[in-house]
């Protein structure tokens, strides 16, 4: 007699320890094997785009902070890049350098969360706390600069809210040699651990063609072996003045584009970010950071799409101005939003435990997905 089997639907989330927020995944299971994944999002929808239409341009910045709350600096960076393009203003060199330093520090902080929570998702809790310990150092750097640890409102249109704190350069320079050995420690503890490798290598393979077609960007795309980084391929700000590598996935532990590659690209990127910070601190020019801030932001009628390389990928802002002080339309091209849409493709044929591994490796932030 043939055994009768039934497909089971398992709801993962919205309250679940490792969905990184309020995400609901509807898993179609056969035993423990995934037949399909249907993400349901919108639990954190805060109507950013509607709100933005009622705000003036500078007032949007605190809202932008709250999109991807793990990389607020970079969200501001992207937004002001777009608005400045629309206004057609040049910002002083010092401002650009400080933005780059802040952006790269934020990238490290964000990757630390990604790596740490990834470890926690796979059951290793210690790397998670190690990562958060180091992230605190970066947040303290932000705190002395602008007074906030998470939602900065620091990068303003045309400038910055504050100049660097007198201690900042010294503390940032101290941070770099402190942090380098921590990356090695993380590698010892997690990256090369056999169990970790077993869990992540050859899991959730994302071939580069699929990645491009899905619009996946950032470390996820680079994990698939494609050397594509907007800092290099479509330079903005002063990124063309720095010397850094673009790490890509090489399939060292399995196939190119698996979870381990995506994870390890983040580890390598932290080192590259350190390099950029070092160079930027060396080259940091003097100047006034508030001199180019316009008194009244009132861009001409027009539209702009500007994008930056957020820690999670290509963060784009599409802004339409109708000539008033309020933006007519702000659309955010959120990298996590796109990354999450690949879930179904990545998860099929894997097991429940792999859903967690894959979800962690694409590093989503629900605040950005739901906006």
């Amino acid at each position: 007699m043939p055994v009768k089997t039934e497909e089971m639907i398992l709801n993962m989330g919205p309250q679940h320890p490792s969905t990184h927020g309020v995400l609901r995944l509807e898993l179609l299971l056969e035993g423990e094997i995934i037949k399909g994944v249907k993400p349901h999002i919108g639990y954190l929808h805060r109507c950013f785009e509607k709100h933005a239409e009622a705000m003036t341009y500078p007032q949007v910045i605190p809202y932008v902070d709250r999109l991807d709350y793990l990389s607020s600096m970079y969200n501001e960076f992207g937004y002001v890049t777009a608005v400045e393009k629309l206004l057609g203003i040049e910002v002083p060199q010092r401002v650009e350098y400080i933005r780059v330093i802040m952006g790269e520090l934020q990238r490290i902080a964000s990757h630390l969360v990604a790596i740490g929570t990834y470890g926690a998702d796979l059951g290793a809790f210690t790397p998670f706390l190690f990562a958060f310990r180091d992230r605190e150092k970066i947040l303290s750097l932000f705190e002395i600069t602008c007074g906030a640890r998470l939602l900065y409102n620091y990068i303003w249109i045309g400038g910055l809210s504050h100049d660097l704190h007198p201690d900042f350069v010294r503390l940032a320079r101290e941070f770099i040699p402190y942090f380098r050995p921590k990356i090695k420690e993380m590698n010892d503890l997690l990256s090369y651990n056999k169990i970790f490798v077993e869990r992540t290598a050859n899991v959730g393979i994302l071939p580069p063609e699929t990645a491009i077609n899905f619009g996946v960007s950032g470390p996820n795309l680079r994990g698939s072996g494609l050397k594509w980084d907007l800092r290099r391929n479509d330079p903005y700000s002063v990124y063309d003045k720095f010397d850094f590598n673009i790490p890509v996935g090489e399939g060292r532990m399995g196939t190119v584009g698996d979870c381990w590659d995506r994870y390890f690209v983040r580890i390598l990127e932290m080192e590259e970010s350190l390099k950029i910070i070092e160079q930027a601190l060396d080259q940091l020019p003097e100047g006034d950071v508030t001199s180019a801030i316009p008194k009244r932001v009132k861009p001409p009628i027009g539209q702009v799409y500007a994008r930056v390389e957020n820690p999670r990928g290509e963060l784009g802002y599409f802004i339409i101005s109708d000539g008033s002080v309020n933006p007519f339309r702000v659309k955010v091209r959120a990298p996590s939003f796109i990354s999450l849409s690949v879930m179904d493709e990545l998860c099929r044929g894997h097991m429940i435990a792999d859903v967690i591994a894959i979800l962690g490796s694409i590093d989503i932030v629900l605040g950005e997905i739901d906006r």
Partner: protein
Amino acid sequence: MKTTEEIFNLLKEKFGESIIEFKTGVPVEDFIVVNPFEIDKVCTFLRDTDSYQFNNLMNLSGVDDANGKKITGEQGEVKLEGRTFSLFYHLESMSLKQKVTLAVRMPGENPEVSSVSEIWRSADWHEREAFDMFGIKFLNHPDLRRILMPYDWEAGYPLRKDYKNPEFYQGMKVPY
């Protein structure tokens, strides 16, 4: 590297009437306006032709142009006549490093457009979002559901400029 104008001229040659207009002079960005029902063909062409290779859809955003004329109906209801919705497609060729912006315009009463989700899978969720926020219908979309709003949201499409919050949703008061 081709400029938007060159692409426009080439497309105009190929597709004729489907390519409606070339907008330039707007600060920062030029764009090409395309017929909403031909956008999928144009996009397929742009992706698959060797000299374009627009393999990446960076962004797709709906816009309520808010341009209609207000007409008060017999029962006092306000209608916007002649309003349009737009969609902007930001394409990029990662191999040739060129970008182009396409746009389509749809009438406000029945905004319909061909889906490009077959061409770029990234368009899938973007289109669902545009449907969710503006009520733009994408023909041939595989799974056109609301994405950010609740599936049973009946008060309309929130990013339309004439959207009004409902009083109640599922018995809960909405403006808290």
